[in-house]
């Protein structure tokens, strides 16, 4: 993978860190409603650490993504730490060091990452988690890749899919994470992790172009 890929991935995560900071209160409020009110501060803590990583230390995007995953694991805690950490660690594992960052490559890496999340979280689409935003994005990217779409064109579509997935969590009964304790009372609230995941894909659409 070229230096350009590293720079792009870095731009993506810098943007994500900025956006997470902007949405901290919103994420925390969503988590107060059906969780324990810390998702915003958890993500800010983690992404601040990621944004602080020195790009010069990395030879390629894969090693940078790996460090991002490890950084999230060791700074975030809670459910989001291991899950987002696993997402990036698996993306790193999937992205060979020579790969170009095209739609297929990105879709493949994200897919591997999201599979890591569902494995670690024992979760599936419909459980009212971040997975509900991530899986539609992956599926959208795969479909666009199969049609040969450019990443710059594919990502805005994937972001729309993630947003729709996020919105759809409102109607669901939570079956994983803290919100599952609420049973039916979780209905009517958007899942905070789905909201932060949708922001991740939106950030990609703005930077991986």
């Amino acid at each position, binding site marked *: 993978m070229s230096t350009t890929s590293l720079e792009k991935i870095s731009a993506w995560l810098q943007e994500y860190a900025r956006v997470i900071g902007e949405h901290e209160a919103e994420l925390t409020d969503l988590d107060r409603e059906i969780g324990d009110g810390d998702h915003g501060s958890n993500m800010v803590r983690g992404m601040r650490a990621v944004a602080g990583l020195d790009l010069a230390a990395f030879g390629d995007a894969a090693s940078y993504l790996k460090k991002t995953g490890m950084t999230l694991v060791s700074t975030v805690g809670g459910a989001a730490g291991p899950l987002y950490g696993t997402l990036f660690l698996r993306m790193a594992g999937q992205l060979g060091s020579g790969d170009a960052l095209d739609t297929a490559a990105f879709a493949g890496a994200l897919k591997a990452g999201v599979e890591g999340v569902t494995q670690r979280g024992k979760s599936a689409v419909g459980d009212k988690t971040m997975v509900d935003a991530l899986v539609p994005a992956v599926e959208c990217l795969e479909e666009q890749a199969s049609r040969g779409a450019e990443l710059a064109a594919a990502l805005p579509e994937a972001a729309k899919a993630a947003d729709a997935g996020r919105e759809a969590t409102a109607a669901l009964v939570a079956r994983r994470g803290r919100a*599952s304790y609420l049973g039916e009372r979780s209905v009517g609230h958007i899942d905070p992790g789905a909201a932060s995941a949708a922001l991740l894909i939106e950030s990609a659409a703005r930077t991986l172009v």
Partner: protein
Amino acid sequence: MKELINDAEHVIFDSLKGVAAAHPDTQRVDLDNRIVYRAQPPRPGKVGLVSGGGSGHEPLHSGYVGAGMLDAACCGEVFTSPVPDQISAATNAVNTGAGVLHIVKNYTGDVMNFDMAAELSAAEGVEVATVLVNDDVAVQDSLYTAGRRGVGLTVFVEKIVGAAAEQGRELGALKELGDRIVANGRSFGIAITPCTTPAAGKPSFELAEDEMELGIGIHGEPGRERVKLGPASDVAHQLVEPVLADLDFTGAPVIAMLNGMGATPLIELYLLYGEVAPLLASNGVDVARHLVGNYITALDMGGASLTLLRADDELLDLWDAPVNTPGLRWGC
């Protein structure tokens, strides 16, 4: 936000500085890693006991580090589980070669972070076993939830397994003992006022003057049901019945804990215990040991939880064994 803190971001670090100042004789605090250790390292051959979780439940867990209970507690951010590196560091530090037992409350975050820590430590040759505490009957234990939460019973596991570890029992035996306690213990909690985390700065939920939440956990999360707040005699029923409905507590000595959630004055907790105790008795429950006080809290939440453990002579003996921690002390 009305709190005695410096700033929300440094609450854990700042508070651990206070722990270090408050218990220099019995505890040692690794401020960088947010780990509270016993001042004395475990003696050779003793299994290390490590617990931890989100902060805000004090005295749990750091208040239970000391002779007869934990060797180390890992303090996460408020209501956020600690991270794998931190847990693994504590695990490695208290390993004497006899292995380390993790006592983990069943929350997705705690489970995943302790699992990853166990993998890290195992990779360094440390034998790790885990007791997963999931005693909260308010949550259905099904494929469609994250399973029952770990709440009040955690205190009992830390005390009883801690005493057994002190006797020199082996890792496998301690895990079995912990699992036995988990199989025989149940809890249920109610809240009459919410709590406010430093980071959120807002109450975790809104309750009208005459409302209470049934089946709350220890993270300010709403419960399963919101009902009218009645007299303490009603609340006692609301606490006792779900616990008794879930497990038979008759025909064995029982260890009971009526726990305050943080902001409930002791006078009210005693008053509630005055209703709970006869109710348990009239249901054929023989309370052999009991605690009334703040043992596992949710910051400044108002409310209470009841924990019952179906015990036997062995568990009672281990319960009675000397303990010297900031949160529990007797026999020395």
